[in-house]
């Protein structure tokens, strides 16, 4: 498997989904998984997958001894694997900028030179594919499609790509041609394509011109939260809190949240709105809130990480995800698991599998405001969604998703 992010060092939903799926597949048994990521930190959970760091994989020969390697990368990867990989270098990459171990450095993030990193990642994939035997290659999201294709060419094994998002979602239609080309190339070379929702499946079929019979939807699931997080103290407060949580970007539709908030506050003063997260539209949103004259009841927290996210949810009465286009959207599931009723846009993938949420069109500010008002004013609705929501989430497990992926593997192997 080729991935880009892996918990605990994650930047978006991709890492969580990759982790959950891998673990779910492992729990289905009888499977060895090698998971390649650009830059492991050593604190990743190992038990269920063999994690290989692209930045620990040599692409040029360096004469180093065991102890030296152990000292350098021992906490991330087994040194023996390093030597094994070193035996499978397939070309001379000395012209590149390499470190003392003959490895390429990766940021593991989304830097400006992301295209270069993607290319480097696929060079490394060549070494790994030659070293570690496999039956199926699985690439998560466009960053790793070139690596997947490379590995497929080296090994001749079937390639499954996992579409967590497309550039159409990220850009509201103004796609970056380079990204589009990489995505389309990946899809065309793949033996099978997994999408995280029917919404994404349609995009893949319609916008990328892929034959429907090789695209299957496997909905994401949610990793059960620890009791520690579920039992976070909930503060007693007079005002109800309605929360938006996510990157404040065009894709997430933050302006609709602000507009709906303004409508609610016209009628009901005992509500506070929180916009948690950061992003390129944050300043515009602060300005919009001020313009609507609701800044006294509309709060910005900035970027929340790790535990802060759950503390925020524990303090919320309603969670809102007004995404304009959301391939899946895992955060409402987490909110529901925390017992926070959610309002989600019909344009998000998770709307396909959730029933105990309120769904509105992202542009229908009236409907969204109405739903917010109902959830803070009518306790019957709030209680119902709280109780049923938790119940529903417990039925959505990664094991089931993993089982579906394994079935797809069987199909492509036997073809």
């Amino acid at each position: 498997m080729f991935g880009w992010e892996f918990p605990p060092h994650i930047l978006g939903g991709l890492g969580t989904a990759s982790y959950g799926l891998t673990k779910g597949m492992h729990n289905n048994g009888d499977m060895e998984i090698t998971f390649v990521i650009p830059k492991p930190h050593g604190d990743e959970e190992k038990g269920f997958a063999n994690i290989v760091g692209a930045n620990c994989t040599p692409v040029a020969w360096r004469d180093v001894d065991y102890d030296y390697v152990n000292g350098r990368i021992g906490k991330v990867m087994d040194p023996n694997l390093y030597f094994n990989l070193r035996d499978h270098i397939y070309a001379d990459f000395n012209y590149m900028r390499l470190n003392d171990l003959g490895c390429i450095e990766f940021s593991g993030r989304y830097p400006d030179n992301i295209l270069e990193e993607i290319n480097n990642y696929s060079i490394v994939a060549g070494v790994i594919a030659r070293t570690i035997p496999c039956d199926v290659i699985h690439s998560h999201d466009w960053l790793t499609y070139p690596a997947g294709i490379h590995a497929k060419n080296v090994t001749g094994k079937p390639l499954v790509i996992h579409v967590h998002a497309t550039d159409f979602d990220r850009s509201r239609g103004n796609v970056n041609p380079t990204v589009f080309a990489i995505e389309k190339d990946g899809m065309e070379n793949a033996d099978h394509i997994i999408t995280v929702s029917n919404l994404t499946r349609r995009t893949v079929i319609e916008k990328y011109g892929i034959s429907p019979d090789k695209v299957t939807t496997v909905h994401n699931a949610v990793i059960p939260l620890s009791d520690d997080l579920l039992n976070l103290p909930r503060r007693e407060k007079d005002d109800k809190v309605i929360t938006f949580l996510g990157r404040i970007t065009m894709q997430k539709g933050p302006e609709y949240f602000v507009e709906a908030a303004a409508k609610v506050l016209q009628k009901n003063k005992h509500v506070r709105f929180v916009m948690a997260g950061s992003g390129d539209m944050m300043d515009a949103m602060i300005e919009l809130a001020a313009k609507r004259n609701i800044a006294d009841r509309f709060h910005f927290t900035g970027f929340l990480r790790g535990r802060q996210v759950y503390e925020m949810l524990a303090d919320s009465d309603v969670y809102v995800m007004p995404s304009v286009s959301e391939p899946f959207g895992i955060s409402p599931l987490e909110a529901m698991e925390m017992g926070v009723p959610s309002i989600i846009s019909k344009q998000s993938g998770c709307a396909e599998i959730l029933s105990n949420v309120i769904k509105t069109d992202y542009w229908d500010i009236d409907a969204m405001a109405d739903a917010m008002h109902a959830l803070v004013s009518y306790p019957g609705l709030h209680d119902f969604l709280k109780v049923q929501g938790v119940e529903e989430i417990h039925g959505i497990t990664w094991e089931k998703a993993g089982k579906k992926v394994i079935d797809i593997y069987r199909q492509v192997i036997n073809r």
Partner: protein
Amino acid sequence: MRSVCFYFHIHQPFRLKRYRFFDIGNDHYYFDDFTNDDIITRLAETSYIPMCDTLLDMIRTSNGGFKCAIGLSGTAVEQMQLYVPELIDRLKALADTGCVEFLSGTYAHSLSSLESPEEFRREVYKHDEMIRNLFGKTPETFANTELIYDDDIAGEVLSMGFRNCITVGAKHIMGWKSPNYLYQAETAPDLRLLITNDKLADDVARNFNNPSWPAYPLTADKYMDWIAAFPEQEQIVNLYFPMDVFGSFLPANTGIFQFMKALPQFAAERGIRFVTPSEAVSMLKPVGMLSVPYPISDVDEARDVSAWKGNTLQNEALGKLYAVAERVSLCDDRQLKQDWEYLQSSDHFFYMSTKNMADGASHAAFSPYDSPFSAFTNYMNVLADFLVRVEEQYPDGIDNEELNSLLLTIRNQAAEITSLNKEVKSLRSSINPDDEDLPDVKPAPAKKRATKKAPAKKTASKKETP
């Protein structure tokens, strides 16, 4: 001799328009006139009118041999009066044949029988009043909203003066017993219970148009054979249908109307006759008691009231609504009372049901909303506005009993004033007999001023008298 009794029911609620929370306090009109008009007009054209014509035809060709019962909800009748008055004419024509018995029921097709006995009583009286005005007959047989029934309701129904009641043959109540007999209510033995035969009714309503059903196609011949084949002692078969089954759920091109028209002839061949419910009760002897501790109904597989009271949403909405029942009955704002009636329709709560939510069952099919949550939200917004209006009538701080006594005093005061007025008059006439006719004299325009003074004088003198 075996008898068959058909019941047809017509109900339409006043559906609510999309009502957002920012309309609360600003907009006091709640109903979606366009949809209501559209639905009842369409149903009248495809179903109600052709069905009434079919029934009329059946009665005429059989020379009054075909009989049946029809139940109408008040909200449906109001919509007919507004949008399809020709349907009322058909119903009157049916009433004039003397072969159709009109049933009693709740005015708004509501759940008041479960929530508020006083309101239940009021609704039934209002409903029967309406039937009397329309058809000149007082209903004798009671059929509750979707045949909801339990032991408590039996007592209520009997105390309202009904001797006959229709309810549903729920499996968990009937057990081994056959529905084709007359029963007594255990808590109110004077109340006779007619039990619907669900199986035979479903054979028409669900299977008539279902080619995968083993007995497909259903013919009048076959149907009457089945009825004729019951054991000798089973004397009555009660068949209950919402009238829109005919023509709407089973479109005319399935041949359903022809099926109905053929029934009397085949029934006559087998010595089966048609009766109205009150005839059936007068002919038959009850064979046993039925005890129904928990309410049953004609709706959903469970045959209980969970279709309307199955989740916290429905219970909150119902609780909030019936909490002001007494308040509304105390006030005399006609518009408010009318809205109160319409808001009680059970349909509003039916739309909020979350049963089988994922696979969208019959609840979704009838609902004008896209989810039970939006049904709830919309209803609660309307209710919030309604409650504000109720509160405007009488301040919230006074409790109902206090309010009641205050209102009583006000009403008594009126009576007291009139009696005192009389006294004044009589006293005055005894003092000055010429004055007696003064208020009745029509003064000439010139004397206007003088006459205006007269009542003032009168009030002054009134103050002196006590």
